[in-house]
């Protein structure tokens, strides 16, 4: 029984020490990000323009290429029907 009690005390100490340490460690990491990394980000910004626009172009052209003629035909068919119905309703 005494042994169990001792184990509970040890587990409690471990829990307290563990949680305090995890919070402290990740807390220091927050400070590190907010100070060192934030400053670095201002000093050395990414050379954005060229690769960014390229990536955009690529993704937009890809997105366009992804729509198959069948889908386009289906959508335009649906639009036509909707317009026709809409006209009749009016």
């Amino acid at each position, binding site marked *: 029984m005494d042994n*169990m009690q001792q*184990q*509970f005390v*040890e*587990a*409690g100490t*471990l*829990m307290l*020490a*563990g*949680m305090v*340490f*995890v*919070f402290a*460690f*990740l*807390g*220091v*990491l*927050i400070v*590190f*990000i*907010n100070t*060192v*990394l934030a400053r*670095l*980000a201002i000093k*050395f*910004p*990414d050379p954005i323009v060229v690769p960014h626009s390229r990536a955009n172009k690529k993704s937009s052209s890809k997105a366009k290429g992804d729509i198959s003629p069948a889908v386009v035909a289906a959508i335009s068919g649906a639009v036509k029907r909707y317009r026709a119905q809409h006209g009749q309703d009016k």
Partner: protein
Amino acid sequence: MDSLTKLWLSTGLANFELGQIVMMLVGCGLLYLAIARSFEPLLLLPMGFGAILTNIPIAGFSEAGGLLHYIYYAGIDTGIFPLIIFMGVGAMTDFGALIANPKTLLLGAAAQFGIFATLFGAIALNYVPGIEFTLKDASAIAIIGGADGPTAIFLASKLAPELLGAIAVAAYSYMALVPIIQPPIMKALTTEEERKIEMKQLRPVTKIEKIIFPLGVLMMTIFFLPSATPLVGMFCLGNLMRESGVVDRLSTTAQNELINITTIFLGLGVGSKLSAEAFLNVETLGILALGAVAFSIGTASGVLMAKTMNKFSKDPINPLIGAAGVSAVPMAARVANKVGLEANPHNFLLMHAMGPNVAGVLGSAVAAGILLALVGG
């Protein structure tokens, strides 16, 4: 006649023991979960097959000279396989969301409460006859709450290798069950209004920040918690390979071929620990139960921490992202996103939840380091 008897005695049928048959069925159960239910199939499939192989009578897969014996001692007993996998996970991880919103590290820290609270549960289980967990065993079981497979296997191989099979099965089963376990807890602890909260868009993160981040994390681990450096070090190496942009070949290998090859052997090695004498006992039931408790407490404490932070923060924080503080990348973040969408169809929390999610990976590695330092010595 004599040779006929000899032949019969060399068949599996003549040598089967009941325990082996039961464990083969357990192996088949794991294969079923992997194939039919897609529960963590990458690991459960080789693990289930390993369980079948190791229980074949006479073949001696897990005895000295057997294939699984060598796989286990070469890769798991030494801790090499989980560490290589951790490097691959590092190469797959994007810390952008975390760097953009560093406060979410606190959510990753809070969710680790599941680990430390479960220590009590494991010790309390010693009241049940037939169960005898030491503090080392309890620590290895509690790490299931970190929801991180490689970390759980790494710690179990160091602290309680005899429980490794049960711990790995529990860890991966619960990770697969994240979409079922988490949502009820998340909903019970938040109001509809809180679940609808929309968060501010994240700032873009520069390349230099992403490169310096893993180095900073490593430096801090070296200073404050060297016992966690095997896990954190390999993780940071993988991440630096990814973010530096100069070793794409290595990064691609770490996150594809290398992690795949290692996963096969890790699964087989863990499966080799699923022998009848090690698995068929009350302790395994206790481990499975404690794993679920650890997971639930981790989820709850993450959500409660996020609720508290939302009250004091000037930018709104949706409490659902707190649940992603248990690692289980990226499943836990996806669950937070899904539950958020149910409350508000225009609210996409995925990127916000990735912050606490990767913070959880770091948090559980730190927790494992603490347990190793305090209990392992």
